[in-house]
């Protein structure tokens, strides 16, 4: 029997299930679940309310920035400055509030700082053609240095009249005993997922990562979008900085040191491709979760904390290995 054109076109290439099995994020979710199950049985301390509260909250800081980083990585860029931007935003917030201003003004100043840095990165990259790696590497140094200048390299732990409000914002648990940062993370993840899937902006981000030249030729405003993604990334670092300040109750100038690598690791483990064009909000969260579960479990299992880097690095390589294996199979 001859197959008509319509039949061929109607044929679905992927079922939902096959799509799921082909996704890196799915396997990372499985890994997280298995690790959690194992830890629940192997240790008494894992499945306690207190430990779960800690884990979920610890995930958030990396996860929130990973959401912003996802935008950048989908366009094929990278933002190495997020750890320093987190520190600078926290410091701006702390210094502003310490000087007696309200929490609203502190947050506004902090967000504005983050956005300004993101815009600076973005303009150098999009309009002047600087490589993202170099620009954000420079900013990594600049932002941390500015944080030191702003605070004179001291620890700020008194936040003026709204001190308690700030601590409640980051350290409280307003709904069902879930740590506030977790709620912010879920909200931001939903927004990120929505923007990536349902907006023209999201579609254009994927297009730029897929083929920047094509995006330009078809009239996508590539430059403006690139500036926007670096602003989003810096904004996410700023938001994480504000929340972390509220949780820690003190800001030092080494806050967020080396965090950019954890964030990029989370994004990549969650399925984003550093070559651009691929990435999801859910993946960023799951990647951050896997890193935190590894870290937590090493502590609970009594393994020396020095081994942490080995396990996290191994997870990165393993995640990308799965991706490579799938590609080999496809090319056969």
């Amino acid at each position, binding site marked *: 029997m001859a197959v008509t*054109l*319509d039949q*061929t*076109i109607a*044929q*679905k*290439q992927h079922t939902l299930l096959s799509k799921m099995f082909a996704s890196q994020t799915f396997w990372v979710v499985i890994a997280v679940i298995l690790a959690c199950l194992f830890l629940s049985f192997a240790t008494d301390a894992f499945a306690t309310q207190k430990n779960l509260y800690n884990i979920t909250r610890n995930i958030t800081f990396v996860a929130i920035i990973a959401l912003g980083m996802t935008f950048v990585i989908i366009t094929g860029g990278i933002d190495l400055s997020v750890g320093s931007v987190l520190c600078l935003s926290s410091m701006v917030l702390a210094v502003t509030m310490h000087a007696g201003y309200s929490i609203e003004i502190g947050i506004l100043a902090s967000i504005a700082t983050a956005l300004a840095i993101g815009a600076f990165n973005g303009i150098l990259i999009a309009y002047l053609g600087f490589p993202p790696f170099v620009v954000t590497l420079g900013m990594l140094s600049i932002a941390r240095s500015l944080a030191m200048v702003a605070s004179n390299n001291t620890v700020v732990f008194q936040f003026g009249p709204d001190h308690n409000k700030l601590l409640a914002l980051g350290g409280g648990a307003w709904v069902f005993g879930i740590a506030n940062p977790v709620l912010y993370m879920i909200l931001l993840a939903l927004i990120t997922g929505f923007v990536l*899937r*349902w*907006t*023209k902006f999201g*579609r*254009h981000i*994927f*297009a730029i*990562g*897929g*083929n920047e*030249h*094509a*995006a330009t*030729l*078809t*009239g*996508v405003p590539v430059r403006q979008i690139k500036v926007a993604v670096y602003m989003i990334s810096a904004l996410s670092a700023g938001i994480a900085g504000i929340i972390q300040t509220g949780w820690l109750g003190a800001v030092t100038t080494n806050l967020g040191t080396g965090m950019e690598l954890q964030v990029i690791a989370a994004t990549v483990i969650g399925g984003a491709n550093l070559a651009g*064009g*691929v990435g999801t909000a859910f993946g960023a969260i799951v990647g951050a979760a896997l890193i935190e579960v590894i870290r937590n479990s090493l502590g609970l299992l009594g393994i020396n904390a020095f081994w942490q880097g080995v396990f996290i690095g191994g997870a990165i390589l393993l995640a990308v290995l799965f991706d490579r294996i799938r590609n080999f199979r496809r090319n056969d």
Partner: protein
Amino acid sequence: MAVLELTNISKHFGAIQAVNDVSLSIEPGQVVGLMGDNGAGKSTLVKMIAGNFRPSHGTMQMDGKDLILHKPVEARQHGIEIVHQDLALCNNLTAAANVYLGRELRRGVGPFRILDYASMYKRAGQIFAELKSETRPRDLVKQMSGGQRQAVAIARTMLSQAKIVLMDEPTAAISVRQVAEVLNLIRHLRDQGIAVVLISHRMPDVFTVADRVIVMRRGRKVADKTIASSSPEEVTGLITGAIEQV
């Protein structure tokens, strides 16, 4: 009436005369093969029609009205569509997403508008059906054959009411079977009254599908005649300069 009319068009970059005093007119539903060696001025000419360059001298008219283009988007607004040599496709997106790239359909009210996936899949599917192409709107472009990729790039030109489609080397670097597919796509465009300018190095393709052939050499138009009244040997002679002008 001619859909596109170029009168005494020249373009120079500094001292280099890329296109020199070229006049031509293109009728609706006509396939014109534009041939010439590398550096003959084909691309420069096409880029002026596409709005990438502005002519140094001469005028362009569309449907009898003056056509002045400052950037590619304006050419598109006038119904001039381009299929680029590298196709300008994003491998990580679906066929439908590529067709609608830069002019996505959205639904909703005011600032609250979301991508209208259903309509884009549907319309893209209709266009592929019109083109008689075995391309599924939901498939990723990276899984597609060369012919299907061409179909996606050509489908893009059919979204709006294009009057003229410029195709830059659409049959370079694809298999023989796929070349036949692409030539069919060109015929479908023609049958809908769209004028097609086919820039190609491949003599057989031009002589299979084109109604007219224009040959350029060193920035000048050296021939402009119907396919029936020409031959591949003559065109080869014109391209290389063995035949001066006809």
